[in-house]
């Protein structure tokens, strides 16, 4: 089931670097196709890439 507009809006208002990660995480949770461990692996990977990208700037 689609999240409500209000919730989408609140996630959009996260600080920019966190908002992308939050959307990524919510999409995986809503999809309902992945296990919790799979989602955990994917978000871990995404955060690491964001951090490394930021440090290499």
């Amino acid at each position, binding site marked *: 089931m689609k999240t409500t507009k209000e919730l989408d809006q609140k996630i959009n208002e996260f600080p920019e670097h966190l908002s992308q990660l*939050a959307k990524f995480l919510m999409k995986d949770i809503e999809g309902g196709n992945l296990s919790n461990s799979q989602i955990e692996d994917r978000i871990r990977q995404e955060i690491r890439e964001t*951090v490394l990208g930021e440090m290499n700037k």
Partner: protein
Amino acid sequence: MKLQKIYMKNFRQFYGEQEIEFSAGDQNVTIIFGENGKGKTGIFRALMFGLYGSIHIEQDNPNEALHLVNFIALEESNNMPIEAKVRLQFESKGKNYELHRSIMGVMAGNDIKERMGDVELYITDENGNFSPDPITDEFEIQRLINDILHESIKDFFLFDAEKIETLAKTDKNVKEEVKNGIVKLLHIDKLESAINLLTKLHATEKRRLLQDSKNLDLNQKQNEIDNLTNEISDLEERISMKDANIQACTQEIADVEAKLSENEDVKKIQERYHETQEKKTYELKLLKAKKDEMKNTLISNGPNLILKDTYYSVKNYLDQVFVDQKDLIPIEVIEKSLNEMVCAACGTDLRENPDHLKNVEFLKNNFKRSNLTPLISLITSVIHDYQISEEEIIHTIDSNLKDFRSIKDNIAAIDQQLDSFQMDIADKAQQQENLSHLESTLTQKKQDLENFKVDIAKMKDQIAEKEKDKNALEKEFNRLIRQNESLKVDAKVLQYIDDLKSEFQRVFSEYSDNMRHKLTEEATAIFKVLIDRKDKDLISKIDINEKYEIEIMGWDQVNITQDISQGQRQVVALSFITALAKVAAGDYADISFPLFMDTPFGRISGTNRDQLIENIPQLSSQWILLLTDTELSKTEEMQFKATGKLGKWYKLDQIKKGHSEIVELDLQESLATRG
């Protein structure tokens, strides 16, 4: 979601092939009328079987065997297998779905064996594209259907009469169910999942970092954090056990009191006890209101009251400053007097009084405005205002204090009365041997209840203390990893996870509070529309509290959840369900749920029925009703027809035992069999 059509073949009483088309749009009401035993619940079963593959519905006794395949078809089959089928057509978010389910049955002697058959789902998308190959994977179908209307919340929209009665009850299971419905429909569960997932990820990342670094300081800090975490979770577990004890104890007290009330003498005292307790509730409410009033008076006048003794000397001093600055009279007044040649303060004609004119000119020439003048004016004016109202404020505080004391005295007197009733009950019980053990149990249980509450309060304090220590340790741990150059990336990753979690926690709290507030507002507004006029003012609010429980507040803001009638309870339940669907839909016009109700009017008064018939079609996208003869008299039939919302009209005819026929009627025809 809109239900379009249900087709049944040899399913329950529906021998052969039969179908019902559901109405939607402007005429969104479908009524299926049938006296008891003619197959109304069979249709409800077909819907549950079709959508979720459920063989049992909530009202079934799980120990009793239940068969879905039609008996007549089985008897005629000469021991050959018979297939019962349900085909359901519905629409959701622009897509059309056709779901086929079957169950095979075979009769051997008196024994019937049934086995689930195939399931197929056909989908036509928003553009009319249709795949001829159905989805047949049960798991995938379940996922798709749950995405439209999750099985765990289906009972809020597709329900039988018993469901609606239980929904507004206050027992633990119902509370859990209501909570589940709210968190699922409003996606609060998804936020909870995100927070839990990030908490777990943080722990895993931290463990990995500790293993890699082998830093003793870090490991030691983490051990301390782990110990505190364990202690906190032990305490939480103990609190939840004590909570369960409180629930059990409260129930036991109610049971013992009920047994005691079987004795006439005790019953009379209990009645007086309850009346007195109501008085106490009222006095407590007055006390709270008075306390709030006193708090407000103190907040607005507190600073003045604290400083009042200093005010007089400050004001005298500031007045002197004005005099010294020679700007006691504002320049605007002096200039106005000179321009108009009339003293603006006393009205003296300055042309005729040259000495007065001289004085005014002197004032102008010597006028000196300090930068502090506006501030001094403000302070003196505030002090002046306070001095004017001081007497009144002190009088108000005194009288509030007197009222407060008097209410407190009343409560103390009521408590004494309550104690004396308790003692009277104990005496009566002691006089009769069969009751004496009940009385001692009651006293013991009441003491236990108090002890549990004290224990819980103590443990909550301990948790707060430990959480504080844990936070300090976490900060220290983070400081240590930031100092370590080789752990820079890991430290940053942990920081990201932590920040993300904090953001989700903040949104969780804001969003869930907001949603509860919206639900409270909507449910109350809908209730006011649905309830009988005479009961409108009885209930001021249907509140959804922090634990997501439905609480019904009376006109005087007292919680009356336990005290309302069954009929009112049903209207509360309906208001809540409709509000939940509305809040869940939010701004998305395409999210709506049908209300499918099996015999819902049983305990609802005539006037309330009229209100529901008139208003539910406006509040819900589709209303499908299975009604029995006592629910659809000529009065209700006229009401339904008068709304102009009735789109489909069916009756169930029993041809013989085990064979009911669904007959569609013209909307002009009459159905009701009772006056």
